[in-house]
Structures are given as C-alpha cells and as structure tokens.
C-alpha cells in the first residue's frame, strides 16, 4: 500500500503535484513548502517502503495547518488562505493515501487545486497548462481496473465526454445569468503585489522594479494615436520630498467619484497588483471599471476605492486640457529641502546652479528647459543598474556622481524646480511598453516602470517633463525593452531593425500568443451580466425566456444522448415473436411454462387444442419454426428479423 500512489496512480500524483507547483506565486512560501514536504515524505515512504502515517496523524496535521493559516492570515475566508489550505490538505491526502477508495477524494482535491489557480490569474498560459491536468484528473475517475488494461479506450471515452460537455458549457456560459456581488467580507490586502508602486521612491527603487518582467496591464487605444515616447501612464504623484527620496501624501482632499466615460478613448486590462493605483494617460478625465469604483483628485490622478485583487477592465476617456491647480496645491508643492547638512561651500555651489536656472523673468517652462539643458550638457549619464542609494542627496548626485536611473533625474529635477520656486512633484508610473500589431494593443510590464516630473506652468496647470529624454533619449524613443537589449545584448543594426519590425519568428509567435491571451482575458472579463443582458436584448429575448431556452437546450441534449444511445439497442425479435405467440395462446388459457422449451410448448398447444390444430397446424408449425430460428440463430440480419416478426404477426392474426 506504501507504493500504491506512485505505482498505480502516478498520473494522478503528477497532476496534483503540478497543480501545487502552479500555485507557488500565489500562496505564502511556508504553505507551499509544507505541501511539497508532505509530497517528499510520501516519496520517501515509496522509495524505502516505509509505513505511511495513519489518518490520525494526518488529521492532526490538517488541524494544525488550519490553525497556523488562521494565525497567519487572521481569517480562513478568501482565496489565499483557501488555496494555502488546499495545498497542505492535498499534500496530506497524498501522504496518507493507501486505498483505492480514497482516489476519488484526491481527484476532487486536485480539481479544487487547479481551479483555485484561476482565482489569481486568467492567463491563457495557465489555462493551457491546466487542460492536460484536468484531463488526467478526470481520467482517474474511471474505475482503476479499467484504466490499467484499457487506457486507450478510456482516453477515447473521455474525449467523447468532453466533446459533449463543451457545447453544453458554452450554452450555460452564454445564457445563464451571472450576477456578481461580494458574499462575505473577504480581506483583500493579504498579499503583496508584484506590480505597482509603494508610496515611497528613493534612488534605485524604480530600477529594482525594472528587473521584473511581470505583466502590469494591456492597453488598447481607440481614437488617438500615440507614439511610444508619448505613452506615460501616471500612477502615483509624490509630493513630499526628503532629499532624493519622494513620498506619496495620502489625502482625500478634492476626491471625486469618476463617472462612466461617454466615449471610450482607451481600454486598460489591469492585472491585480493589490494596491489602489489606477494608471492613466495624460489628459484622462473619466475612468470606470465593472464592479469597482474609481476616484480622482483635483490633479486628475486616479485610484480605486479598494485594493485591486482581481483583474480590472477599465474604460477611459480623455479631455484636452488639464484642470487649473488650486493655491493649496501650489503651496504644498513648493516646500523646499533642507540643506543644513551641507558645507557652506557646497550650499554656495548649489545656489549658484539654481541662479543659473532662474534668469531674470524666467517662466516655469524656461526654468524647466534650463534644468534639462544642464542634465544634457553637464556630463550626466543614464545607467540601468545604479543599485540602491536611499541616502543619496541632491548635492552628491548633481556634483559628484552624475549617474542614475529615471528616479534619480526625476527626484533631482523636481527638487531643482522647487528650489527655483516652481511647484513640482515626481510622478511614478509606466512608460511605453510593447506594441502588438496583431491585437493593436500595448503590453506594459513592470520593467517599464518609470518616474518623471510634473511642474505647474505659467497657466497654473500641471505639465509633465521627463529628464530622461535629454540624458538617454533612446530609452524614451525605443522603450525600455529595446533600450535594454541594445545596451546589454549589443544588438547589430539589422537585429534592432528586425526587433523593431517584429519580423523574426519568435517575436511574431510571442505577439500571436500575447494577442490570444489578451482576447481571451477581455472576452472573459467583458462577458458579464450586463453583456448577457445586452445580447438577450439584441435578440429580443427576456431573461426569463433565456432561462427557458437553457432548460430546453438541456432537455434536447438529454433526449439526443438517449436517442443516440438507444439507436444501437437491438430489439429482441425473439422476445417480440414469443409475445405474439403467447398473446395468441393466452386466448385459449394457455401459457408457456418457464421450464418448457419451444417444442414442448408447441406439442402442448396442439394437444390442448385438437380442433384448432387440425386447420391451423401447418401455420402454427411455421410460426414456431420462425420463432425457434430467431431465438437460436444470433447471426440473423436485422431485415430478416423484421420480416420474421411481421410473418408471425400475420399468422397469429389468422389463427
């Protein structure tokens, strides 16, 4: 029994183990490790033929795991504690598995395990990976004796079942109303997202985020055409400065609920990042998402009312001009850094620099240009890997190192603007992305993280400016991905051209899959209750009628399956003939005995009905002869059988 799982149910073990592995990014590492540990324990028992732990032990361990999960998450509700518990439970179930009868429960756990992955991600890749796992799990529901000797038959049978299930599933998905509402107060911020930004940005923190290839969002633009260099998605506005470190001020001042866009200018499918940041293009005036509320402040920075823990489908519209900025905001964004820790010479050096920016009657725009010019000509360099420098101060950056990533330049420029009496702040978000010409959308990843500056111009409106455009213009023109490839991979001119055109096979395949993934995600996200209502409305069908159609469809499928199966059920012609003869004989109170053969019965009829036998004997003999022929000749064709039955019916009618 110690070897039962890996010997007789290895496909079940593999599928559940892979399902566990797929959940690695979504559950705490200790839960995942514990699940894997139980699998290792089972494998150890298998290899060395050790006794597997009893149910009492595994039951106690399950209880213990439940208690620890409760302590860790402070709740048992929610997808993370649930997925964590299922991982541990399936590990324990695999550990104690010692009987064929436990197989079904393990399969059920496997179904939950693989399905729980989709609570965290809609990604088509996971779905494709999960399909063989679903098939293997379902295959293991067949009787094990059958699987051992008839694996091919079982696979064919499973294929037929799945083929029948697909149209039924599609019908239910399209027609069954699916309203959505939070059933329970499920905690939402129980894990850290791998995309988005924290409230504080210090030198090196954005460059660290750029190491991640995590998908952040896909953006589809409808009315306006943007060049890559213009694609800035604002996330957080950082208004409080401490040397080169900038902080986000949490305030509900002037917060307003965004209305539904009248016309959609662009659509964002935002991956869950477990923060409240919504990323918007410059000039966005309205944003809305199904099932979520989006607010904006007086500077048109958008955010959710809750932490985003499911994929959001956002529609947005853009207005030409940004609103005027209030005095309070201007004052808030003028606060200057403290340079008391600098030596008098250093302070003087800094003051001289600022004076050079502030020429007589220079406007905010002019000062901004002067600063950019200083970065362009002052020997500053752009580096992809500056390392973490949280203690870096403005002086050291400007006069000593002159080397940094986007957040260095943004932080320094915003400080310089403020020192020049221009209200300014740092914005963190994303720049660029990869354009997919097949799907006409942009894919933005965490590596596209970026920081830039906004200052209030002479018209009292926020104006963005990106110092990287002068330090490393290729980074902005080509995007991070391409720039990174050029710098790190030392691409040839032709390779750069191919990459830009997306003509190489790998790029095209990647784009094709990304497009499929995007369409799949948007199809699922879009197909909600409202969409269902719209479709029914367009077909002039009420919700009630839709439900009736579903029931009717189920009924038709049911009848079809039965008819399909019944088609092969051969009528027992022998029994039908027997019934004909029996019905005839019962008129004379004669009935065949179970112990009586056809010939004996025939003789008994003749004996009991001598008068009838005289006239009817030849025909009766013929009827019996046909019946005997039908009963004992299995190879009689269907047509011959039918003919025989018709003939007996005729004879018995005459008799």
């Amino acid at each position, binding site marked *: 029994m110690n070897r039962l799982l890996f010997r007789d149910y290895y496909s079940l073990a593999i599928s559940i183990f892979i399902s566990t592995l797929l959940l690695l990014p979504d559950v705490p590492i200790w839960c995942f490790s514990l699940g894997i540990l139980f699998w290792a324990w089972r494998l150890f028992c298998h290899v060395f033929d050790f006794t597997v732990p009893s149910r009492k032990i595994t039951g106690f361990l399950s209880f213990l795991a439940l208690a620890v999960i409760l302590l860790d998450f402070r709740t048992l509700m929610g997808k993370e504690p649930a997925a964590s518990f299922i991982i541990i439970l399936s590990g324990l179930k695999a550990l104690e598995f010692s009987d064929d009868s436990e197989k079904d429960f393990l399969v059920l756990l496997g179904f939950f395990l693989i399905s729980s992955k989709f609570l965290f991600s809609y990604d088509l890749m996971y779905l494709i990976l999960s399909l063989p796992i679903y098939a293997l799990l379902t295959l293991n529901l067949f009787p094990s004796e059958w699987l051992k000797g008839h694996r091919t038959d079982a696979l064919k049978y499973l294929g037929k079942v799945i083929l029948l*299930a697909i149209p039924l599933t599609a019908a239910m998905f399209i027609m069954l109303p699916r309203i959505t509402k939070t059933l329970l107060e499920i905690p939402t911020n129980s894990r850290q997202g791998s995309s988005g930004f924290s409230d504080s940005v210090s030198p090196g923190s954005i460059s660290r985020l750029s190491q991640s290839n995590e998908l952040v969002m896909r953006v589809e633009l409808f009315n306006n055409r943007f060049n890559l260099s213009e694609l800035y998605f604002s996330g957080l506005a950082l208004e409080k400065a401490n040397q080169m470190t900038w902080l986000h001020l949490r305030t509900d001042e002037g917060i307003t609920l965004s209305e539904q866009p009248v016309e959609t200018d662009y659509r964002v499918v935002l991956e869950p990042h477990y923060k409240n940041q919504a990323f918007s293009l410059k000039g966005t005036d309205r944003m809305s998402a199904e099932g979520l509320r989006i607010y904006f402040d007086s500077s048109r920075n958008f955010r959710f009312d809750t932490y985003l823990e499911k994929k959001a489908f956002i529609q947005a519209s853009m207005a030409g001009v940004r609103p005027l900025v209030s005095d309070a905001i201007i004052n808030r964004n003028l606060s200057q850094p403290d340079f008391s820790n600098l030596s008098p010479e250093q302070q003087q050096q800094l003051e001289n620099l600022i004076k050079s920016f502030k020429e007589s009657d220079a406007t905010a725009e002019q000062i901004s240009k002067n600063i950019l010019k200083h970065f362009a000509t002052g020997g500053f360099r752009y580096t992809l890997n500056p390392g973490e420098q949280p203690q870096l101060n403005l002086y050291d950056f400007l006069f000593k190192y002159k080397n940094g990533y986007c957040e260095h330049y943004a932080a320094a420029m915003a400080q310089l603007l403020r020192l020049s009496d221009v209200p300014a702040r740092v914005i963190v978000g994303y720049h660029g992305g990869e354009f997919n010409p097949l799907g006409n959308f942009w894919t933005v990843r965490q590596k596209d993280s970026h920081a830039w500056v906004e200052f209030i111009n002479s018209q009292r409106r926020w104006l963005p400016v990106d110092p990287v455009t002068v330090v490393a213009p290729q980074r902005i023109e080509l995007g991070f991905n391409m720039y990174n490839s050029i710098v790190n991979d030392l691409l040839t001119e032709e390779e750069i051209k191919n990459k830009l055109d997306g003509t190489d096979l790998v790029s095209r395949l990647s784009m094709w899959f990304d497009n499929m993934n995007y369409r799949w995600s948007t199809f699922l996200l879009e197909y909600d209750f409202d969409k269902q209502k719209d479709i029914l409305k367009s077909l002039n069908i009420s919700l009630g009628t839709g439900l009736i159609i579903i029931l009717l469809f189920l009924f038709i499928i049911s009848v079809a399956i039965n008819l399909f199966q019944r088609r092969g059920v051969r009528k027992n012609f022998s029994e039908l003939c027997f019934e004909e003869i029996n019905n005839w004989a019962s008129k004379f109170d004669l009935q065949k005995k179970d112990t009586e053969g056809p010939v004996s019965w025939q003789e008994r009829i003749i004996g009991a009905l001598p008068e009838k036998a005289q006239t009817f004997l030849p025909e009766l003999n013929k009827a019996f002869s046909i019946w005997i022929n039908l009963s004992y000749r299995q190879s009689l064709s269907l047509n011959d059988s039918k003919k025989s039955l018709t003939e007996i019916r005729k004879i018995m009618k005459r008799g």
Partner: protein
Amino acid sequence: MGLKFQSKWMPDAKTKKQKRPFIIPSRFGFYFGGGILVLIALAYTYANQLIYLIAFFYASILFITMHLTNNNIKSVEISEYFIGNFFQDENGSIKVTLQNNHSKYSARFIQVDIVDFDLKTVVSEIPPNSYKTVEFSLHQKNRGQFEYSKIVLSSKFPFNLFYSWKRLTWAEDFYVYPARDGAQEPPYSSEDELSKKLDLTSAHLDSKSDNFLGHKEYTPFDNYKRIDWKVYARKNKFFVKTFETESSRICFVDFLDFFKKVPDLEKRIRQLTKWVFDAQKGNALFLIRNENDEIMFLDDRKKYEFILKKLSTLSAKDFA
C-alpha cells in the same frame, strides 16, 4: 394429517420482472456537486468569469455522466437466473447470465448483487450483443423451500458520480434438500416379498438395476419392456433379462410408519434423504407408500427430486 403428495411433477409457470433503471447521485457525486456549488460561490464572490466557466464545465460533465451511467445499465438484462437445488450444509451454485442488448456499446462495470444472500460481484465488461455468465457459491444451513432472491444490477460507471440500478424479481423457488446423514442400512426387500406384501406385479417393479444375472423365459407377469429382442431374433422366443437387484435391492419405505417410529424428525429426514440419494445414485428401485396407501415408484430423476423436495419442507406439523 396434513401431508399431501401432489400428483403433478411440473411446477407452475412463474413470472420474472425486470424493472426500468433508476438513478441517484452517488456519495462522491454529492461531493462533486457540492464542489461545483463552492466554485460558483467563489466565482460569484470574486466576479470571476473563468471560475464560472469551469463550474459550468463540471456541471456539464455531471449532466452527461448521469445519462451515461443510466444508459450503461439500461441495455443490460438478465437472460438466465438459475439456482440449482442442493443439500443442506453443502455448497450450491447460482448462475446468472447477463445480456447486453446494445449493438454498439459495451456495458461496463455492472455490479450483480444477489440481495437476500448478500452475494456480490462486478462484471467488468459485456461486449455489445453478447452474454456474460457469473456463478456464485451458496451455502445454506437450513433445509426448505426458498424463493429466488431479488437481483440488483447496478453501475457507477464511468465516473462514480451516479448510482444507477435495476431491480429484478424472479418468482421462482429452489430447494435446499436435507443433509444426507444416517448410519442405518436401507430397508431392502426382495421382489417376491414386496409382491406379496404390496400386492404388486413384476411389471410394477421394473427397475434399472445394473448387475445382469441372465435370461429367463417371458411370462405374462413380466414387464414386456424387459423382453430382450436380440435374443428373440436369434431364438424366436421371448426372453427377459434378470438382474441381481430384483431379489435383493428394492428399497421400500412406509412413509408414515417410518416417521412414527422415530421421535427425532430431523434425524429421520436426513436418513431418508440419504437412502433416496443413494438409491438414485445406485439406480436402485425405491418405493414409498404415502398416507393414501398409494405406492410411489421413484423410477426417474423428477420423482427423486420430488421426494427430496418433499423432505426439504417436511415439518412436525405435517404429522399432527
């Protein structure tokens, strides 16, 4: 005296009933259905359309499986169900032949449950248009006449999500003969003694004895069936065969007398069963006189069976 011997040897025609199949979710089916509901609750809570899709897929599998399980049992019938009579404390056998009437699909994993005797087996496959016979061994401690047990054919194929069953009743009886036991020698009599005692002719005492002694000339008291025609052809005279048992191996039991003398009814029944069985096995002639003074000649298998059946159901009340 309630003891009666029926004059007809053939039992009444009895009927069999094979009912239509029924179906309910199995225990695992309930868990599976519960799992679908949990998924729908999750999809509802998290507005997750993909989980809805998965839940609907499982629901479709459940719906299709219901039909498949039902159809798996639908085309299967019992074409033969036979329980042979057997002796008490010995093993009898039950033979059940299942027939798959479907011309395309095999019936798979059909459980045959002989309810009253708590006997079960699983037939893994019955190919289309074919038969499968299963045999069970049956042991009974008590003698008597028993009804054929109900048979339940059931299946959970393919996914153990539904339990479909068909109950079949078979209005037929079988007998558990009394145990063959006893040390007494059978009461053998010679033909002459019996002829005098019972006022019988030789024709009545025709036997199927085995030890041939020789020929004697035919007399009108001899059974004409015993004429040896080969000898007639040679000698043009009628001769009959004579056998050893004719003078020593005719067993006669006066039924009432036999049971009156011995107080232990069960012991007597077992003894008589042994004599009857031995006589049948040794082709000896066995005579029984019943309560109406009728002599019964146990000269073929059916009659032996009849008397064994009678012994199976004999009770003290029959002699009240």
